[in-house]
């Protein structure tokens, strides 16, 4: 029967890393088994999924040891959902899997429509993929896998960029597809509790990429709470971690800013080609004020315009209507260096913000450009990246890259700090460090703003701005 998985002695050292990220990993899955894969940031969870799709040593360069056998067809939702887009329009994108499975047209489109509905994408088949937000791309990637009806479904943090409602819809869609014991499921998640009902086995990887717990959901929640909680695993039933106390002096702004107000702000995003264009209104007449000394959380469902508002506040997007008041000259009109002096921004895709060849240089870069002193080693130690100071930023795991991206936004002590989904992919300990930095920035008098789906981070904020779902064009 297809759907079985055998991993024996898996060892993987990616090109450019001195030490392997996974050492001697063994894992056997029965067909139809549903497994939640947990572990601290950088433990090798995504690596294991890449091993199961056969990408290690072929598409991804590095040193591979051990054996990996998978029976049947595999479907993966990758961590960066933008990578999964293969077509210009969403219907054709979802149809990619069924086409590969040699299905007829009728069955292909039946599956496409069913998959789009299951993940809650309200657009028609002809909507341009380039007009989707991060969270919408995540749901598109899942639709693409569901339409394939694979024997082994692999999900790499499939709800990391979704709000509670869409996350629930995604879990239900996964449950319907794999619930009848047809598919084997491996889901990597940091926030385990909502998934425990859906799985019948929990496997936890330790920091060195070895299995430290392999148990049932019940026993997992009961017996391993304290020990795995210490490792950083988000164990159900544990209280929310306390943000790490960070010395506000590290973050005291070189040039403090007054409150900033978005007044009747409208931003339209155009995705255009000669064959047609899709215009989505990311923000329509939004009013919001962000204060120095406060951490403001921008919340709302995926596609509501959180990232756009964040970028508009920092002068990174010129609005189509309305203004951002508070500073003169407006941030949107400032030259690069003047802007860098007052703004720190951590983008939603961390890699887009990296400019240096090593992790330590990355932290120092903006501060050096501005002639401000900074202690890169101290920053790296704070977020647990000190052992990677000499590594290339591209070689880090998803969660590690995101922490580095946060450091690049704060190390030059800006007066306005903009963090786009800073806690995605973080374990309890690294979450506490990231949240601690955001809190300390507010305490130091920074205008601190974060676009986030993370309820725990929202709870840390002084106030939040809830954006509504935009009208479907």
């Amino acid at each position, binding site marked *: 029967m297809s759907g079985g998985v055998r991993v024996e002695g898996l060892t993987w050292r990616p090109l450019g890393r001195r030490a392997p990220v996974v050492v001697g990993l063994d894992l056997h899955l029965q067909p139809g088994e549903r497994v939640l894969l947990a572990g601290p940031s950088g433990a090798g969870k995504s690596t294991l999924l*890449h091993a199961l*799709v*056969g*990408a290690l040593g072929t*598409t*991804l360069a590095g040193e591979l040891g051990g054996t990996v056998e998978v029976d049947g*067809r*595999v479907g*993966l939702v*990758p961590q*960066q959902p933008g*990578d*999964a*887009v*293969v*077509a*210009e329009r969403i*219907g*054709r994108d979802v149809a*990619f*899997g*069924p*086409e*590969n*499975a*040699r299905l*007829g*047209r009728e069955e*292909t489109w039946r599956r*496409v429509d069913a998959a789009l509905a299951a993940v809650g994408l309200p657009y028609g088949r002809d909507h341009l993929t*380039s007009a989707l937000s991060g969270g919408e791309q995540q749901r598109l*990637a899942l639709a693409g896998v569901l339409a*394939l009806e*694979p024997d082994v479904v*692999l999900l790499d943090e499939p709800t990391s960029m979704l709000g509670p409602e869409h996350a629930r819809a995604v879990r239900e869609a996964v449950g319907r597809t794999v619930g009848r014991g047809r598919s084997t499921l491996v889901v990597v998640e940091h926030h385990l509790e909502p998934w425990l009902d859906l799985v019948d086995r929990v496997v936890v990887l330790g920091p060195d990429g070895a299995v430290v717990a392999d148990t049932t959901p019940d026993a997992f929640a009961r017996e391993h709470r304290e020990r795995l909680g210490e490792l950083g695993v988000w164990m159900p039933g544990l209280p929310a971690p306390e943000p790490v106390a960070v010395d506000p002096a590290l973050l005291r702004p070189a040039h403090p800013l007054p409150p900033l107000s978005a007044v009747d702000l409208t931003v339209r995003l155009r995705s255009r*080609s*000669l*064959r*047609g264009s899709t215009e989505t209104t990311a923000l329509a007449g939004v009013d919001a004020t962000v204060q120095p000394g406060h951490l403001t959380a921008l919340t709302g469902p995926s596609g509501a315009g959180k990232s756009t508002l964040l*970028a508009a506040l*920092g002068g*990174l997007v010129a609005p189509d209507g309305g203004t951002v008041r508070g500073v003169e000259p407006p941030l949107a009109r400032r*030259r*690069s*260096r003047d*802007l*860098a*002096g007052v703004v*720190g*921004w951590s*983008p939603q895709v961390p*890699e*887009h*913000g*990296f*400019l240096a060849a090593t992790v330590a240089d990355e932290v120092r870069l*903006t501060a050096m*450009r*501005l002639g401000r002193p900074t202690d890169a080693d101290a920053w790296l130690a704070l977020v647990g990246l000190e052992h990677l100071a000499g590594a290339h930023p*591209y070689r880090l795991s998803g969660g590690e890259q995101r922490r580095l991206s946060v450091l690049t936004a704060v190390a030059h002590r800006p007066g306005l700090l903009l963090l786009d989904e800073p806690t995605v992919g973080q374990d309890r300990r690294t979450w506490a460090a990231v949240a601690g930095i955001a809190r300390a920035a507010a305490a130091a008098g920074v205008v601190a703003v974060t676009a986030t789906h993370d309820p725990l981070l929202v709870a840390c904020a002084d106030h939040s701005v809830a954006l509504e779902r935009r009208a479907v064009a």
Partner: protein
Amino acid sequence: MLRLNPLVLLSFGFASLAGSFFVRDLTTAVVAAGAYAVAGVLFLPTWRYPLACLALCGISAGLIGFSAWRLGNGDHAPVAALRILVLAWPGAVVVGFVDPSRLGDHVAQRLHAPGRPVAAFVASLQRVSGLATAWQQLARARRVRGEGPTRNPVVAARYVGSMTFAMLADALRGASRMSVAMDARGFATTTHRTWAEPALWARADTVGLALAVALGAVAPVTLLLT
């Protein structure tokens, strides 16, 4: 124009390529280039894009003309320049109107090209439209980190270099991640695949193909008649 079969669209480019070999004197050159310009005015839904293509092709045409003149072939310079226009301009324009997915449908189903390479080609063409977004994000990050361009030409040159390298790195890394994602959607094991849309041939396509051939024939016919 937008609804034309993508193969017919490309045939305009191939026909102009073939026709350009017959551009040997000034009359032929002017008539052939003029025919494409008239067809463009009549059938294209936009004028900005073809003019942008004309400007870009004009650079290479100008360079070719200039070198012909420098090599002492002054009379031939305008012919050489116009030949490059006839060769490159129509193709450059029609490519902009080709929908990658539809092109894939037709190349695979009508020309019976093997499915796997066609699907990979279509997916890579789709990446091109993502380049604008990547450029925007990379430029934003540079600006907010104090690494944006300034009026200083040295800084501006360094900026272009850094952006080019970053785009290259992003494209390569994106390509390997996309290839993982494609393989993990049944692409790794498929040899023959189906196509979600049929490759239909409409009467307008026949008319379009005839027009492409006619435009391509303008140069040889003019050469024969003069």
